[in-house]
């Protein structure tokens, strides 16, 4: 990734130094270990926080409780065998994980998915983004203590999308759908109509959510100016995804790499100017609107045809020796896979670039100086999934 | 009225004992509060058993006393906090410097 990919409005300040807010060292400090069993750490994640009263003076993220050795397992199974494991990285977005991995291996093996498969990939990926953002917003508001209402509305919409996934791939979350050189099965009959119906109905939910919460004074008070991530820090910590864009950096891999067929769709990339929790929330809401636009045109334009590259084969798949890095814009940021092949049936080296983990590295910088309650929503606004952080 | 007066004497002496014996500033304050309460009790008792129970003056005295005690406790505890910040202790024996 060259830095020219980043589209900044103004050049980064070379003299920028990460300035850590510090709290006063006065009074008794309280060390609280939040997690691994804590209602709002989104899984088995631990934050060792040092509190001065309610203010966070120090925060140490501790992860690894969900480490499942994904990368080493992948090096010891066939290429196809790690496809279902990628489902379990970010278990909200199994389809985009599939895509990122398939993209990498296709690069390695020189496969080209047919056009229909590319369309299916875009459609499923955008649906995945929708349901991920919907859930994230629900969780974020749940962390703010909204006693479940936004979360339940979010899950109501997610249900419709998961139904689509189930009728296409057979599973609601662990889809295991994409294959090197295409997709596993073709769309069942009537699927496109059903999908269009979901897309048409979705704005109703967005409006409802907007009325319910976007104008809420408490939400504004809780999120505006909280957990500001400066642009320079975001870039130098290689934060990606909505978190980066909320800080005002125009960097969306769908635009930068134009992988798949994203260059055929016209969509906009929302950017925030403040980089606080509210911006991260709003950028996601606006991204959902853009995703809907992509979905609409993709569902309209999808051509008939085969869904697998005829060169692709399932069994005894051995790409020629070489290396490849494939990346996509997943709902959480840049999801990359780096695979080295030595010509055998197993990858020689396999590595995931998980957006959740890398976005999590700036957690302390965002949290210090804020209260515990803020730390919880800042963590929520980063959008982490522990399956991906710990791998 | 004798039991009441004995009770208030007991309260007063207990408060005095706390103020004199305990070395913790908070407990000294607790003792002072006890003594104040003993005085309040006396006011009420003398109003009830005194020659003119129709007068509201004792009640008002007690009322004022309660209010002032609240103020006193607030300021006293704030003082203790400030001292604790400085001396890192609430033991009155440690506060042996005139200069802060």
């Amino acid at each position, binding site marked *: 990734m060259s830095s020219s990919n980043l589209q900044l409005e103004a050049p980064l300040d070379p003299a920028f130094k990460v300035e850590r807010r510090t709290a006063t060292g006065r009074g008794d400090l309280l060390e609280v270990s939040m997690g691994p069993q804590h209602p709002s750490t989104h899984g088995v994640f631990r934050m060792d926080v040092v509190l001065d009263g309610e203010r966070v003076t120090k925060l140490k993220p501790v992860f690894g409780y969900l480490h499942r050795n994904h990368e080493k397992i992948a090096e010891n199974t066939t290429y196809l065998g790690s496809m279902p494991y990628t489902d379990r990285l970010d278990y909200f977005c199994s389809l985009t994980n599939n895509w990122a991995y398939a993209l990498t291996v296709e690069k390695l093996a020189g496969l080209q998915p047919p056009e229909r498969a590319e369309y299916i990939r875009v459609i499923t990926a955008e649906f995945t983004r929708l349901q991920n953002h919907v859930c994230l917003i629900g969780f974020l508001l749940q962390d703010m203590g909204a006693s*479940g209402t936004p979360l339940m509305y979010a899950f109501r919409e997610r249900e419709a999308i998961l139904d689509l996934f189930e009728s296409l791939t057979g599973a609601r979350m662990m889809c295991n759908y994409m294959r090197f050189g295409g997709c596993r099965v073709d769309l069942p009959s009537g699927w496109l109509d059903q999908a269009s119906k979901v897309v048409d109905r979705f704005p109703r939910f967005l409006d409802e959510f907007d009325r319910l919460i976007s104008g809420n004074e408490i939400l504004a008070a809780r999120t505006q100016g909280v957990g500001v991530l400066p642009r320079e820090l975001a870039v130098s910590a290689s934060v990606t995804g909505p978190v980066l864009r909320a800080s005002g950096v125009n960097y969306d891999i769908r635009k930068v790499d134009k992988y798949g067929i994203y260059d055929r769709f016209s969509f906009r990339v929302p950017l925030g100017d403040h980089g606080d929790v509210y911006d991260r929330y709003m950028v996601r809401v606006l991204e959902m609107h853009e995703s809907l636009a992509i979905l609409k045109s993709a569902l309209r334009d999808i051509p008939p045809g085969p869904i697998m590259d005829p060169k692709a084969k399932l069994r005894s798949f051995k790409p020629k020796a070489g290396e490849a890095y494939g990346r996509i814009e997943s709902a959480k940021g840049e999801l990359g896979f780096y695979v080295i092949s030595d010509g055998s049936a197993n990858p020689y080296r396999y590595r995931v670039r998980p957006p959740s983990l890398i976005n999590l590295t700036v957690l302390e910088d965002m949290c210090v100086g804020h209260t515990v309650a803020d730390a919880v929503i800042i963590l929520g606004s980063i959008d982490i999934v522990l399956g991906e952080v710990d791998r | 009225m004798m039991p009441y007066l004995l009770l208030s004497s007991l309260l007063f002496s207990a408060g005095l004992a706390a103020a004199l014996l305990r070395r913790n500033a908070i407990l000294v304050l607790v003792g002072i509060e006890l003594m104040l309460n003993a005085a309040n009790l006396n006011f009420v008792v003398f109003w009830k058993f005194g020659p003119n129970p129709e007068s509201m003056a004792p009640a008002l005295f007690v009322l004022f006393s309660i209010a002032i005690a609240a103020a006193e406790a607030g300021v006293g505890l704030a003082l203790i906090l400030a001292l604790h910040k400085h001396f890192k202790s609430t033991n009155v024996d440690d506060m042996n410097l005139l200069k802060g």
Partner: protein
Amino acid sequence: MIEWADQIFVLLKREILLLVPVALQPLASILLSVGPIMGVFATLFAATTVLERKGLGRIQNRLGPNRVGPFGLLQPLADGIKAIIKEDVVPYRTDRVLHTLAPILIMVAALLAYSVLPLGRNMVALDLDAGVLFFFAAGATTELAIFMAGWSSRNKYALLGAMRAIAQMISYEIPLILSTVGVLMAAGTLSTTGIVEAQSGYSGLFPNWYVLTPWGFAGFFLFLIAATAEANRSPFDLPEGESELVAGYFTEYSGFKFAMFFFGEYLGLFAANALAITLFLGGWNAPLQILDWVPSYLWFFAKLLFLIGLSIWVRGTTPRLRADQLMNFAWKFMLPMSLVNILASGLWRFTGDGVLGWLVCGSLVAGSYYALGLNLAPKNAVTKRIYRFAT
């Protein structure tokens, strides 16, 4: 007949008392007052838990509990049995005496308040000259109970929760008491029955309730907000905010003690709502003169259910405030607002309840509401944010 239906419980008590030997009559009288109060409000508590869960469920587009009994109506019974038979886990280092005393004290304090609440015409357990003051004095002791619970648990979350709870309760006690001052001035008494009687009668179509005056209207909402904060209900539920502090001061409680906390909390809520009814909503009085024939206690409970429903509705809608915002709201909005309200109620006395009174007091209250809202605004109100889009 109407008279008889209205006074049936009073007459019943008198009849039963006559059967008891004279020496035991005071004791029997106490029992006959306390027993029904505890029974009725325990039942109301049970009903409210179902109502709340079903109401919240419907607000969230869920069904709510519907497994135990018809429509899930026996759910509280199941919950109660579960709470009783559950193991009472007491952490090793707790201060056992205080740990056990705290839930009892919280219940006692909540129940004490009921002794001065008039549940119907002539239906008050203890008609004190300073009834309102008694109510607040009883309420003040819950703070002690909460402190005992939080401190004796030896748990950092519990301690933080207790500290938050106490700070919150002390801060909101001031507007809570000040918002009643207008009513006390207008009624000229602190006796709860006296206040209700001052609101009986009708002027034209409308009843003489204090809520139907500008200062009473503002006072009613100030009281409700402060009472919500006192009862630690959403959006002021941060002492037990589960996303931050697990369960706040009752983190280390389980089984029956936990149920007692729960019970005590709801009793506090009912008591505060009942006082709001007494002070502002005309107590047992019927809203329309032609509905006067309905027994008074039915009106009281109808109003109580209405307020409970309101608090469930609010709970289903709002996120939670942060601790410092909560304090800001108390000191920068609630306190000045209630002071202005006292002034308005004083002016009302001189301007009378004609057009002039409405104009003067109404504009005073509305103006200060607007101004104080603006005062909170620079930090808290939604600043209309513009989002840029990159294409």
